[in-house]
């Protein structure tokens, strides 16, 4: 069964500045949806509104056409990877995996560099490894949708490719909404993508829309 996560009627203002005003975004399980936009266009705000963590003047977020006020209360629906590392540094790696019902063996099978970190705390890992664990946990955990804010930042190219492979495998079970400034990876991995410009979402019809909407020169 295909599930949908849909949002529209979103109005977000900071003082006199209107950040989001004409939004329509739809994600489905089995798909990876990209979200591109220049700095300050409200990509992170939009994700936080979808997650229910940021209040907007008006919003409508629906799962399978059912409106939810605080989606983050139901982790089976939605998980959110913020653009920073969110796992407490003092936590043992294995504890973090267990909290999200994941197994250390599965992690090592995919990322053998973690074999020797069985007893390590998150703070003992390198910056790249820490980010990789944050991304891995959100992608692999059981939920219908995952919102990924800059998952490729701080990762080396080989790890980015591994994460893209992992997402392609996991999209059988869930839907992804992903944003990152490494837009070629986003285009590569996404089934469709939106461009956020002037507070509005534009469903890209071709790769040329990226240049037309002033996001990047191709």
């Amino acid at each position, binding site marked *: 069964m295909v599930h949908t996560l849909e949002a529209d009627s979103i109005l977000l203002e900071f003082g006199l500045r209107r950040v989001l005003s004409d939004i329509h975004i739809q994600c489905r399980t089995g798909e990876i949806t990209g979200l591109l936009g220049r700095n300050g266009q409200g990509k992170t705000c939009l994700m936080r509104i979808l*997650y229910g963590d940021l209040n907007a003047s008006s919003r409508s977020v629906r799962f399978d056409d059912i409106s939810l006020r605080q989606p983050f209360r139901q982790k089976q629906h939605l998980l959110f990877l913020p653009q*920073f590392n969110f796992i407490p540094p003092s936590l043992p790696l294995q504890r973090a995996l267990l909290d999200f019902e994941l197994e250390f063996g599965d992690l090592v099978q995919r990322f053998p560099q973690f074999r020797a970190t069985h007893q390590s705390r998150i703070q003992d890992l390198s910056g790249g490894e820490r980010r990789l664990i944050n991304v891995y946990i959100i992608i692999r955990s059981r939920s219908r949708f995952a919102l990924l804010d800059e998952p490729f930042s701080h990762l080396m190219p080989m790890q980015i490719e591994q994460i893209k492979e992992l997402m392609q495998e996991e999209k059988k079970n869930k839907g992804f909404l992903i944003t990152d400034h490494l837009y070629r990876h986003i285009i590569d991995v996404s089934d469709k993508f939106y461009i956020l410009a002037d507070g509005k979402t534009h469903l890209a019809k071709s790769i040329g829309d990226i240049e037309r909407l002033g996001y990047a020169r191709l």
Partner: protein
Amino acid sequence: MVLFREYGMSIFAVLFWFKLFTLGVVYVFIRSYKNKEFYYYLNLGLTRTFLWTSTLCFDFSLFLFLLSRIHKL
């Protein structure tokens, strides 16, 4: 213990307000310096309200319990 012997029950009000003040300091400090880590618990389905209510209530209850134990000594 020494405070209770010295000042009697009148010290209770001072300790009570001092405890509330320190809880406020803890609240502000954690909101500022541990803000990012709230997403860990949000992703586990635990809301900020639940986390604050449970930890502050536990801390304050422990304070009251220890005060009552000291008073009985």
